[in-house]
């Protein structure tokens, strides 16, 4: 096999075809997957700036960013999975599952909270592996497999919590070993020019940056696009399709664990019934951000912008003094608009 040996990589320069004019910058920008979301985010930002005076304050921005971050960390994993051509409907309850597991394992086995968190991570990854393994083995659409695991996890969350603690929430753990350091890592707020910003915002940005780098600058990223775009072709050229997809399910599980730890260390007790319905928010953020539902197309930055739109809408409606009940209507309308706009952008891109 001749590979690197034959390559003339000395110049590292792109050879340009003289017949093709360099596509201008504006056009290149416009056809990026997250462009629709970015324009939408700017529009919504301006609207709330106008109609909601409290929205203009720096502290409000910190709140918006916080709301965006907990959705955004998950949206990052869900977006990668969606680019890889699969779905995870169990992502919402998986968050609750992780924090319940960490709390109850640590409390009832008298472990440090970090040990509980470690065990919860193992459990979460096992659930992710289970999802991915079943999807790949049975070839049943991930929608159905993860719908089943969604209900199973939701049931486990409620039943096991009641069985172990006799209540619908876990015990308080803020006097246990590892609380202070855990809170510092997952939930503390730091001061930026007099405004308290939650550390999850930084984690969110880091997750997005790493995911973006992986997607576009590594082999794994290339494979993620390939397995989502055409799994059979990918397999034919030697991409380990099964491993990539199971890995993506496990990455979503990792994100769920991370957000779960934030819930635990932020709120001390965890309600066993929460998290149901959140999976749709993650999917909405990814789709608004330009991920194609059928896979093979999208970006992590888009998902982050989608999550930011979610955060703005969530808080902005309150700041504007509107009835918060309108939030869901707004979210639905936003999704519809984004899907249509993204579709239009993509068709425009395909014609270029």
């Amino acid at each position, binding site marked *: *096999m*001749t*590979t*690197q040996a*034959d*390559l*003339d*990589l000395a*110049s*590292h*320069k*792109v*050879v340009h*075809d003289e*017949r*093709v004019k360099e*596509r201008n910058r504006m056009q290149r920008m416009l056809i990026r997957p997250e462009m629709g979301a970015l324009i939408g985010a700017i529009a919504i930002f301006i609207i709330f700036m106008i109609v909601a005076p409290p929205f203009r304050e720096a502290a409000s921005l910190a709140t918006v960013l916080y709301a965006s971050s907990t959705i955004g960390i998950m949206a990052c994993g869900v977006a990668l999975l969606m680019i890889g051509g699969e779905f995870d409907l169990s992502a919402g309850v998986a968050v609750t599952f992780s924090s319940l597991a960490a709390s109850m394992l640590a409390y009832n086995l008298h472990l440090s909270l970090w040990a509980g968190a470690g065990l919860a991570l193992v459990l979460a990854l096992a659930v992710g592996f289970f999802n991915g393994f079943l999807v790949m083995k049975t070839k049943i659409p991930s929608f159905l497999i993860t719908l089943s695991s969604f209900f199973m996890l939701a049931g486990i969350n409620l039943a096991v919590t009641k069985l172990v603690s006799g209540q619908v929430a876990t015990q308080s753990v803020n006097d246990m070993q590892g609380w202070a350091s855990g809170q510092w890592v997952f939930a503390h707020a730091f001061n930026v020019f007099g405004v308290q910003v939650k550390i999850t915002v930084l984690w969110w940005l880091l997750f997005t940056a790493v995911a973006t*780098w992986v997607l*576009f*600058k*590594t*082999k794994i*990223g*290339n*494979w993620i*696009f*390939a397995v989502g*775009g*055409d799994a*059979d*072709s*990918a397999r*034919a*050229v*030697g*991409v380990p399709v099964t491993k990539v997809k199971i890995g993506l399910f496990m990455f979503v599980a990792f994100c769920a664990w991370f957000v779960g730890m934030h819930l635990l260390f932020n709120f001390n007790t965890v309600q066993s019934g929460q998290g149901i319905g959140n999976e749709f928010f993650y999917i909405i953020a990814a789709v608004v951000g330009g991920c*194609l539902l059928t896979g*093979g*197309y999208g970006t992590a930055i888009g998902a982050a912008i989608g999550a930011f739109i979610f955060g703005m809408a969530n808080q902005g409606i309150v700041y504007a003094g509107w009835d918060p009940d309108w939030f869901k209507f707004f979210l639905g309308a936003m999704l519809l608009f984004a899907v249509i706009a993204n579709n239009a952008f993509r068709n425009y891109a*395909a014609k270029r």
Partner: protein
Amino acid sequence: MTATVERPEHDAPSGGNVPLVELKNVGKTYGNITALKDICLRVHAGEVTGILGDNGAGKSTLIKIISGLHQQTEGDLLVDGESTKFVSPGDALGKGIATVYQNLAVVPLMPVWRNFFLGQELRKSSFPYSLDANGMRATTLTELRKMGIELPDVDAPIGSLSGGQRQCVAIARAVFFGARVLILDEPTAALGVKQSGVVLKYITAAKEAGFGVVFITHNPHHAYMVGDHFVLLNRGRQKLDCTYDEISLEHLTQEMAGGDELEALNHELGRKSA
């Protein structure tokens, strides 16, 4: 890239070299169904072997055996004169036998250069070993240009290329990654006249560069334009095995269409046979 074999051959009907790939009395049965029987075939470097046959003649089974997807149930498969049995397509690839299937194994939404290197990406030599995107872009362009394909933009999704261009990218990819023998599964089947011309030109270029090409088709005109050697399959058996000089296009077409049947058809349709 192309190792021309030097050892003399005892009973070679064409050329004096050991064929890159040779099939001796190969047969394949699926349960109680005989898909192939007694197939003899030689693929030499710098030659195009056209395999012709109508639907169901056994062309696909034959490719699957040569490309390592299936194993023959009878006979010998020789690579460079040595008897071999491929266990997987990876085995065949390792011996330099690359197959370009009809679906081409490309991911439509991905850029041309990402498709070209998919599964065998180049990485930078220093930490963090990210993809060498510009190196891959440049290589894709030069490799395609070498074979006379001018692509305006290797960043375009491969789905936006024409069928012929896509076929050429898939072939160029196989060539670049060390193939000596190219198996092309009906590369012109879904293409128009002009696009087929592009692919046929490419096949000739590959042949002149010293590759052994197996060109599977059901179009005798295309086969006759580039082939040096023809094998005709019919209902799992080899009906014809001859070189370019031994046969005319009319004869080939007639053989392919089942000879007498075509004349009968001509008669029925009330036109004078050409």
